[in-house]
């Protein structure tokens, strides 16, 4: 039997923008190729094309760049350009994919689902859900915009209007209806966490259509845990972006509550990206905190995923202080893949992926006092690290998750 053609679609190519979702999509494409599948990768780009072309290609020609943008970001709509209903449709007729797996519609236009089914009605259409994008206009974060964000538990038109007064409740009603109508073309949804799945089920997607499949990890050799001794500080690593949703400031607040004795036993390594892109107020807060804590905090700047294994050799714990829900944070999977327990906020995807007292610790989201309590615990009982590290279950490998997709999602 002829091999099925699989088209992976993402909102960006990791060659140009290294985001978690872009990386997950591209990893999937590469692993499908490695397993001998007839896979193609289509990614939206902001690069300039040849004279008005909708597409261009990089690498071996199977990685196609889509030069398009949305005309109405509120609806994720792209109907004013011909790109979806003409160019993309032509591409589909040429490639004739049996399976299309989208890792986003943001930037591309949500009507792409309609165009897939209008052009190739038998193609199986899969969508991996990233963030709460369809549910929440605030970049899919499900927290309120503004200076002191609050967690949101369920979107409704009146509350959404209060978050965005320039849009009426009716606008949010239309948005929800429009997005749901177009998501109706999708045959199966993939969610990397149960929490994310539940949010979409609460919003109205059919539970039976959403399958939870974790983003897989590449196999690595686990570095040994660093030795525990009186004259060595316990090192905690913070990995990821630095912005107010990621809550690094909560960690600094917690450090200021520690006793001098505990501070002397602790070291924090911040591998943080994009601080320079934050608003000046937040930059000031973080820079001031860094200088106040320069006896125990080192700021290293951004890191490459590939380097994490060597970075983590000297690190005892990793920490994630986000004040929004997250979905299935890459940092947690990477940390477990390298055998390090994780300290996390006790909400959403974080509390789902890390088991409190088993392979990590939960502190109350946004609560520096609670976090300080756990930091003191980690310092006073350094051997807890060994127990929790010993309980870590190997996260799924990319090769296995791809096999799972092929056998239980793509082929149905």
């Amino acid at each position: 039997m002829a091999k099925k053609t699989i088209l992976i679609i993402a909102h960006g190519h990791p060659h140009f923008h290294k985001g978690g979702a872009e990386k997950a999509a591209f990893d999937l494409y590469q692993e499908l190729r490695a397993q001998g599948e007839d896979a193609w990768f289509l990614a939206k780009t902001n690069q300039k094309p040849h004279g008005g072309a909708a597409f261009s290609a990089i690498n071996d020609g199977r990685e196609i760049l889509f030069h398009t943008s949305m005309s109405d970001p509120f609806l994720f709509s792209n109907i004013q350009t011909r790109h979806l209903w003409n160019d993309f449709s032509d591409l589909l007729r040429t490639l004739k994919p049996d399976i299309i797996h989208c890792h986003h519609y943001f930037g591309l236009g949500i009507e792409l689902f309609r165009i897939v089914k209008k052009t190739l009605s038998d193609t199986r259409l899969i969508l991996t859900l990233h963030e709460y994008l369809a549910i929440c206009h605030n970049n899919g974060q499900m927290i309120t915009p503004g200076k002191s964000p609050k967690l949101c538990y369920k979107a409704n038109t009146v509350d959404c209007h209060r978050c965005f007064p320039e849009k009426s409740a009716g606008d949010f009603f239309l948005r929800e209806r429009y997005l749901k109508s177009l998501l109706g073309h999708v045959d199966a949804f993939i969610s990397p966490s149960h929490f994310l799945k539940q949010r979409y089920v609460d919003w109205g997607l059919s539970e039976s259509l959403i399958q939870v499949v974790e983003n897989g990890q590449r196999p690595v050799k686990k570095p040994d845990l660093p030795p525990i001794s009186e004259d060595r500080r316990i090192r905690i690593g913070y990995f990821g972006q630095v912005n107010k949703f990621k809550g690094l400031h909560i960690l600094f607040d917690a450090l200021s509550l520690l006793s001098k004795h505990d501070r002397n036993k602790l070291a924090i390594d911040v591998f943080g990206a994009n601080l320079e892109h934050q608003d000046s107020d937040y930059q000031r807060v973080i820079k001031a905190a860094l200088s106040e804590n320069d006896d125990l905090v080192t700021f290293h700047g951004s890191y490459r995923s590939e380097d994490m294994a060597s970075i983590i050799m000297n690190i005892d714990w990793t920490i994630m202080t986000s004040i929004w829900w997250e979905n299935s944070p890459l940092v947690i999977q990477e940390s477990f893949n390298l055998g390090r327990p994780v300290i996390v906020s006790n909400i959403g995807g974080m509390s789902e992926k890390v088991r409190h007292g088993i392979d990590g610790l939960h502190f109350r989201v946004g609560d520096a006092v609670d976090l300080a309590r756990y930091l003191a615990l980690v310092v006073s009982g350094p051997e807890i690290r060994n127990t929790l590290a010993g309980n870590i279950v190997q996260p799924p490998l990319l090769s296995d998750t791809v096999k799972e997709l092929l056998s239980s999602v793509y082929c149905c």
Partner: protein
Amino acid sequence: MTSDNVETTLLVIDTYFSAKFSTLLFGWAYTTKLLNSYEVEVYSNKSRLGHDLVWFERPDVSDHIKPKEGDFCQGFVIEVDGQISDLSHLDFLEHTYHFDLASLHRSHAIDEFLVGLNDLQKAFVESKLNLNVSLSESSEAPVISKDYDAVEIVVDRAFSVGNKFLYLEGWVAESADMLKSLQIAGFTGNVVNYLYRYKRLDLKKFANSRHCDYRNMGFYALIPCRVDRLDNPLKLRLKGCSKSKQYSDRCIDIQPLPIDEVAATRIILGKLDAQHTQNFNRAASDFSEALQLIWHNKLSNEYDPEVHTFGKAKDHPEVSVVVPIYGRYDFVQHQIINFYVDDDFKNVELIYVLDDPSIYRDFLITCNGVFNTFGYPFKVIFANTNLGFAGANNLGVKYSSSEYILLLNSDVIPSKPGWLKSMLTNYENIENIGILGVSLHYEDHTIQHVGMQFFEDAHHPGIWLNHHPNKGFPSSIIEPFEIKSVEAVTGACMFISRAIFNQVGGFDTGYILGDFEDSDLCLKVIELGHDIYVDGTNSLFHLERQSQNLIPSDGWKHTLTLLNGWRQKQKWDTTIKEMKQRG
């Protein structure tokens, strides 16, 4: 051709000032084009914005430009309903000037721009800003007469309304009702009888200095007369007070109203406070007549619209769905995404009527995208001028072909498929039906419409309001019904046979800029002997007034609604009362 024949037009915005709810634009304009009046139109991306405009002398500009005799060279202050970021461009004569925020100078202090303005122009700016800009001593304040018996009267503006009315605005300084007789050469009546007096907050200081009451100082008047027989420039003659002050201080040109009907309407209704005018009936009668004169050409014109067809038209459609589009057009996307999945729409002729030239291009781009994405065929009828709700619907019906018509607002969105055939079946099965409405809900599932009632309200005496019973109720608490007879239904969703629609001549376009034309259609159908029903077995969402929010909501629009209401009462008072008696 010599260069003298080439038209030169310039417009420069010196600065802008952000007021609470509006923006003040300061600048100047120059043109060699000779016109009776000069107007500037300001636009946001999607629509024309309401504004007030004052022209004044700018010697600094004139010194530089050196205008020839007959050239127009004036400074302006425009107050526009919107923040600076809302503004996209303005049109002056046939030239378009785009706003570029980056290069526009924003001003935080206002005083520097008041140089050169006279008191009344300053008062205009002051009232717009809600600021107290002090009137400088050197400005040309009216000379304060020591003779307190004198009556002093100043006409700020005078317009001819279709040569049948003279519209005046101005102020009068008098102590103790001195003003008894006021005459205009060529008009036999006493103008005093036509004056409506109102509060001039902007002249409070001046009023104090004259010992007169600012609350009564302003006036406007609509005087029925042959304007072409009056002296122009116009001079008012006072009678019965001291001889030194027998004439108003200034002569003023009688101008024609702007050609644009909305701009003219804004002028005529700008001061009228219909609600608090003692003689509402006379005011309503005169001002309504003036409005009919202003709008007469537009309303009676036959339009030859552009027809754009997207996809293949149906040969014998069962129902024609007619949807007017004005201001906001993304509803097309929201409606068609619901229509194309609904089998009831397989044999429907869908017609959008666009009567808003400002969104013509974007609308057609969107329509093309919507058609190519969802594949549902439809037609666009484009009239290059605003026809109002009634005119747009009438035009759509004229270009439709089915035996049955569904008139639908663009902000009405189906809740689920399968409602249109059900409405058709109901319409066919109800004896003697004229119009079938439907239950409509807001997005939060509360009631928007389950029929309308004519309603008298002490806040608005002299008109029948179109009351929506149960509006805002959670739909679960009202008694469920299948079909019920009602006094009227909303125009947001009306099912009607073409025969009846044509028999009553469609919507009455005489209700200026909307309101009451739906109830008026119901009353015409009732008069013809048919009944009005509302269908409770089907339900749609109505995001009411989303498309109408773009119309300025300041005083004149409210006044217009009251005048339309008065018009409905004149036409239908007896019919409504008889209907009420029958129960």
